[in-house]
């Protein structure tokens, strides 16, 4: 059985957090995000979080890509917020080997919203350990001032928990901008969704 990276990462967390080098140093897994305008991903997008969040080092689900950044409030097991900023055509949401038997599809700049939604669904199945994935809603929505989409979904994962998520995204100048919120369905989704909504609405592309 393949391991779920998401879940595996979560399992490793407590150990890391307990280490003496953990909190408060640059070697920690988290960095505090304060309530002030914050650049995310490759720095091309700014958001203003309504309360403090925790920025994760890039070792998790969508890992080690400079266009992608993960935040969490209560730990990745329970909730997570992913920013994808200016992902170029032909790139992937995650790092993966060509020889992996199951692949997260590559992003192409001509993808329509239904294709992007399907790409996310496959990402959850391939890398998130989802055994069941239900699309709940796909509707038009402005994002960063551009016509985009909102995608709502829920999935049952290998750890037998139902999680629920919302993605808001748009393709701007051929690059993918996306905010992705995913949390356990019973409590944490509703808990942090308002934060997500605030940030999805105040997110701006930085014009340098």
């Amino acid at each position: 059985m393949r391991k779920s990276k998401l879940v595996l990462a979560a399992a490793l967390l407590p150990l890391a957090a307990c280490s003496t080098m953990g909190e408060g140093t640059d070697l920690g897994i988290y960095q505090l995000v304060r309530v002030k305008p914050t650049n995310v991903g490759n720095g091309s997008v700014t958001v203003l979080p309504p309360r403090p969040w925790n920025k994760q080092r890039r070792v998790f689900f969508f890992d080690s890509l400079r266009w992608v950044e993960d935040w969490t409030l209560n730990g990745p097991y329970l909730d997570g917020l992913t920013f994808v900023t200016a992902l170029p055509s032909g790139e992937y949401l995650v790092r993966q080997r060509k020889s992996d038997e199951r692949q997260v599809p590559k992003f192409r700049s001509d993808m329509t919203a239904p294709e992007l939604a399907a790409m996310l669904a496959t990402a959850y199945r391939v890398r998130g350990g989802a055994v069941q994935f239900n699309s709940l809603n796909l509707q038009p929505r402005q994002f960063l001032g551009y016509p985009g989409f909102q995608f709502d979904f829920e999935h049952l994962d290998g750890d037998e928990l139902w999680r629920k998520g919302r993605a808001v995204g748009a393709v701007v100048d051929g690059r993918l901008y996306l905010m992705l919120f995913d949390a356990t369905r019973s409590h944490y989704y509703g808990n942090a969704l308002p934060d997500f909504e605030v940030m999805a609405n105040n997110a701006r592309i930085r014009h340098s």
Partner: protein
Amino acid sequence: MCMRCVEISRRSLLVGGGALVASAATGVAQARTRPADMVPLIGPGFRPTETDEKGLWQLMDRAEEEISGSNLLVKEPELVSYLQDIIGHVGGPAAKDMRIYLAHIPDFNAMMFPSGFAVVFTGLLLRMRNEAQLAGVVAHESGHFLRRHMIRSWRDQKRKSDLFAIGAMAAGMGGAAGGVYLGDYVQLAQLGTILSLFAYSRAMEAEADAMGARLIAEAGYRPVEMANVWEQLIGEEDASARYRRKQRRRGSLFDTHPSPNSRMADLRLSATEVTVPGRIYDDRRARYLSKIAPIRQMLLEDQVKLNDPGGSQYLLNTLAQDGWNGMLRYYEGEVWRLRNRAGDDARAAQSYAVAVAYPDAPAEAWRWHGLSLIKEGRSNEGKAALGRYLRMKPAAPDAPFIRQMVG
């Protein structure tokens, strides 16, 4: 059969390997196991009497309790009773004692536990072309139980101290509710780890094959279908591996099972032996298809959306040997679309176009057909196809977006 117990394989490779060497030394591994020699070692209503086996059953009862309460199980009553019915036909003397659970996991696997319950993955149902094939796999698993393989290997290997390991695992599963578990891809698969302690030898796999052949023949299924299952599985593994230009999956079924070609040959030979001249055997394909019809699209969706193009393509072609239809053509298109290499959009578009020509094309085929047409610049035709999609599925989750596209 534990056909794809990747988790199991690494350990059992070592353990099973040792058993193999031992049996080879005595010459046991050389002889083919014949169905005629396969007598069930237990009768109806079997309960363990010896201490070690009793302890094992107690732990298994806990494991079964965990499993039966899992929300990963497919609980559709019709389907569950169908599987129970099959094990009731090919379970030999223990037919009435065995339980079977269907887990929603898109892999090819089935496993039997020492106390007589089996877990079948939904990925298995997708790959079976008829009821005889499914019955063959279930019969193979029954064979492990009827031949008492778990307790035999346990005792053979004198690994009784591992009983504690099982206990710890069972406790771990109980503890999962308290939030103290180290997650796996699928918690249920942790039971695969339990199974690894029983590491069937190749000789035991051969026994289960022979026993299985006998059981399905007695139940009136065409015996050769067991060999066909094996052939399909080898083909899929190879196709998936070839696609990625590498060897078969590491830790694949071939580690623990007899070499594929000799096994297939043995299965074919066994099929001939158990065939009684003049008796009519059936594959019960129509019944199978009607039983899994309610979840067929889910099964295909689970597989194709994993984006393993080599494996999925092979699988679709195998299923299409019984005839292409709109559903299969649609998923063929999905394989291309998700693969997303240069030229794949055209291939996908072609599959969608073919799919919608069939009366059974799922609504989604119309959606992708429409989106493909629009991308090709055939906007009006595309919008018409999307309109068709919306009429078929007015409450589709993406209807708001598609409506906007249609304008």
